[in-house]
């Protein structure tokens, strides 16, 4: 057994906890998880059945923690896990799993298959079987602070641009502000309109807010790759920044994975509760709406639909805010089939879009989204995740579908009632 494999098996033995043991014992092999996975439904290949993707973990469980399995291992009746098999499984654990959680949601016995995939990824990463792209992204996050190598000067460049664009100040390191706004690298690099929208919305709402020079990045690729130690480093950076600036609330941006990592997994990773609240930007905007702090005018004339990012909706529990906000600026909002927590993934989450090996299967999986869109025929698609947005645009381009994709925060800002310099539409 190679050193890498030995470490991987040890890690897998360690990560098998009571929930995982009960999941393997509870599985009734019904196949419902297969029908819930877009990689299976769109390819028709049974190897993409979610519970099959965690087969290496099941074998370690059986051989190490069950009486029959241990006896069979002792007399050579079961095959030990090999490095080659783990290598083959990379495609199933990383390329064709966005950890969207649809399989976990439909499982009739309550098995959280995503949880098992995450634990299996820990062993895969240790044994060197994580995709190069995802490993490099995680390394950059730890060393530089961003999976895409974004450094503070780039953020400052965008801040300068936004200040010119809006005529408003973008505060940095303002101690005692009510909100600390995080950005995803994707928003810094590709979508400056997000920060522009935040700046204008906060101005209208009359709220104090700030960016943090030591913790501007929200993306947690430690979660994607499945390495808890790295995920903890990334969360700790945000916690340190928020506590240094004494903010009341940290706002997670239009990035799905960032939200679940910070909101739901963060306190467990650092081993204590936060001293501040974490909200997704959609929750904050909906609060402003309910409090009468978000004043909009006019309605989108086109037929709009909303793509629910899995991590925000299904894994994150943010379901109604985006619908309230859509109705605020649209009279022609139409839901796709299987809406909200049942929505189908864009196909690029969980590190899949950073993984070049996954490109072909990702575009095959996109056929599900295409079918959903063909059914409702919208004029524009709105979403709230920068990664979804690019994956959707690429998929639409690949299938030659002429459909604009916009961010919800940005769309709300376009309808703000503004009267001072900085307004776009008056």
């Amino acid at each position, binding site marked *: 057994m190679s050193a890498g494999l030995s470490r991987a098996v040890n890690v897998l033995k360690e990560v098998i906890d009571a929930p995982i043991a009960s999941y393997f014992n509870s599985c009734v092999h019904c196949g419902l998880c297969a029908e819930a996975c877009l990689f299976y439904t769109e390819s028709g290949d049974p190897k993409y059945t979610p519970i099959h993707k965690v087969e290496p973990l099941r074998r370690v469980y059986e051989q190490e923690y069950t009486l029959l399995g241990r006896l069979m291992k002792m007399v050579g009746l079961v095959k030990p896990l090999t490095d080659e098999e783990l290598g083959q499984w990379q495609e199933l654990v990383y390329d064709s799993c966005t950890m969207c959680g649809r399989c976990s949601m439909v499982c009739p016995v309550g098995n959280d298959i995503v949880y098992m995939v995450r634990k299996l990824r820990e062993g895969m990463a240790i044994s060197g079987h994580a995709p190069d792209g995802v490993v490099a992204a995680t390394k950059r996050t730890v060393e530089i602070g961003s999976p895409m190598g974004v450094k503070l000067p780039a953020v400052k460049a965008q801040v300068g641009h936004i200040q010119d664009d809006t005529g408003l100040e973008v505060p940095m390191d303002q101690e005692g502000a009510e909100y600390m706004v995080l950005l995803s690298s994707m928003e810094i*690099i590709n979508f400056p309109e997000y920060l522009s929208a935040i700046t204008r919305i906060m101005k209208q709402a009359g709220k104090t807010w700030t960016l943090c020079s030591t913790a501007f990045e929200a993306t947690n690729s430690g979660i994607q790759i499945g390495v808890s130690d790295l995920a903890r480093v990334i969360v700790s950076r945000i916690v340190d920044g928020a506590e240094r600036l004494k903010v009341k609330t940290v706002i997670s941006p239009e990035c799905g994975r960032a939200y679940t990592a910070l909101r739901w997994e963060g306190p467990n990773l650092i081993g204590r509760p936060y001293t501040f609240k974490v909200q997704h930007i959609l929750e904050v905007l909906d609060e402003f709406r309910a409090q009468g702090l978000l004043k909009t005018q006019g309605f989108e004339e086109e037929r709009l639909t909303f793509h629910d990012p899995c991590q925000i909706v299904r894994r994150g529990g943010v379901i109604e805010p985006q619908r309230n906000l859509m109705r605020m600026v649209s009279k022609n909002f139409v839901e796709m089939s299987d809406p909200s927590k049942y929505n189908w993934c864009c196909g690029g989450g969980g590190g899949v*879009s*950073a993984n070049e090996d996954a490109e072909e299967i990702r575009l095959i999986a996109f056929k599900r989204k295409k079918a959903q869109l063909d059914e409702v025929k919208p004029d524009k698609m709105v979403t709230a995740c920068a990664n979804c947005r690019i994956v959707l645009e690429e998929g639409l*381009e690949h299938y030659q579908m002429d459909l604009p994709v916009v961010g919800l925060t940005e769309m709300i800002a376009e309808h703000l009632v503004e009267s001072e*310099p900085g307004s776009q539409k008056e």
Partner: protein
Amino acid sequence: MRISNDEEFKAALNELDVYQQRRVAAAFVESVLPLCSDVRVNAAVTAVKHPGVTDVELATAYQGANSARIESFTQCGKETDWLAQAGHFVAKAAQCCVKPVEPGDNLAWDAAMAARMARACESVAEGSGTRNNETEKQYRILYEHLNR
């Protein structure tokens, strides 16, 4: 008309009709065009500058510029190549020149903002700080257009 800040710049652009906005936007893109090597972007600018450009030609140019914009996104988790990203924003600016107009749109302003982002990306790539003179250059382009 004197243009010395973005408020005046935006107001002046707002006064232009769509045809004029497209022409000025094309000039903004031309200023940063060396940052993008995609022929579809160049084709969009050329189309806009043609006096007799038809709606069909604009729609074709839009498709090309939009494809160039989408293909040049930096994908989630990839290491950022700031010069390539500058090219993305040039494609976005070119797309603004030829996009179908919606009520409330200020095509030229949007193109100007994307062109400035392109220049900012170039500055980040060169490690030369974040300031550049693209804004002032755009003021001059508009001034010359208005006084032609």
